């Protein structure tokens, strides 16, 4: 491939595009942007193929390049005003007690249909998180990238990644709460 073999490039692109498109769809909010990100990622990979050291798998290397292309596209896009993460976190009184007691959740994922429904719901709510938090959650919890590498990709400290991940999960929990609460409060 480093010799510029067209067939090798064609095979590489054919083999990896479906998986990388699925990755880009998780980050981008529309199909056109997802496709653009995959294309930009591949073009970037072609330019730097000489720098691929073989220390990691080629598929992992491409994954990171496409994720970076998605992050760059997201940074360049102006989003409509986002909700503040504070608005998505539970409220507490001055003495540290929650404004509302936390209720037990019903069982999640009881059957395949329920699991699919829940996952759709989670995807929808992940998209409602502010980008700074959504991106950390996607990188860490969905793409499985570790804290150090996530920090490098987002130009953050590992501590900031951890804080954002925690707040993103708490906000997601809060968004999911009405769907999993029992119909009748256990405190009433």
């Amino acid at each position: 491939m480093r010799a510029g073999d067209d067939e090798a490039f064609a095979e590489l692109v054919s083999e990896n595009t479906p998986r990388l498109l699925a990755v880009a769809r998780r980050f981008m909010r529309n199909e056109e942007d997802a496709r653009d990100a995959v294309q930009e990622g591949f073009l970037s990979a072609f330019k730097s193929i000489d720098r691929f050291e073989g220390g990691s798998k080629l598929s992992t290397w491409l994954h990171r390049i496409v994720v970076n292309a998605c992050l760059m596209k997201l940074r360049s896009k102006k989003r409509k005003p986002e909700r503040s993460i504070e608005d998505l976190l539970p409220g507490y009184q001055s003495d540290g007690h929650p404004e509302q007691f936390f209720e037990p959740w019903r069982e999640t994922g009881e059957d395949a249909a329920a699991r699919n429904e829940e996952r759709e719901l989670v995807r929808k709510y992940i998209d409602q998180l502010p980008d700074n938090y959504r991106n950390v959650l996607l990188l860490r919890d969905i793409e499985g990238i570790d804290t150090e590498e996530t920090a490098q990709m987002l130009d953050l400290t590992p501590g900031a990644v951890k804080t954002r991940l925690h707040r993103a999960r708490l906000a997601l929990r809060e968004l999911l709460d009405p769907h999993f609460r029992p119909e009748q409060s256990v405190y009433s």
Partner: protein
Amino acid sequence: MTCQELADFIIDYVENKLPADRREVFEKHLAVCPSCIEYLNSYKSTCQILGDLRCDGEEEVPCEVPDDLVSAILAARKGEEPSSPASEDDSAS
């Protein structure tokens, strides 16, 4: 430890990264606060659903190769038009 402070330490608690002394304080609070037990459980459920989504990654991969996108990428590599994905009909075999 208040309920609000407990929330700050949940991530370290579930990842087993709380120092022993803080873990003890954390668990003492849980022992007397049913609301925080439910908060912790629902946090774990949220992580569980996220974990399921992560495992589903393979299922989301399209079964068919999107030929139009593949053609557009290969054309762009050679500096050819189009740089945007062509229609399915235009795809190279």
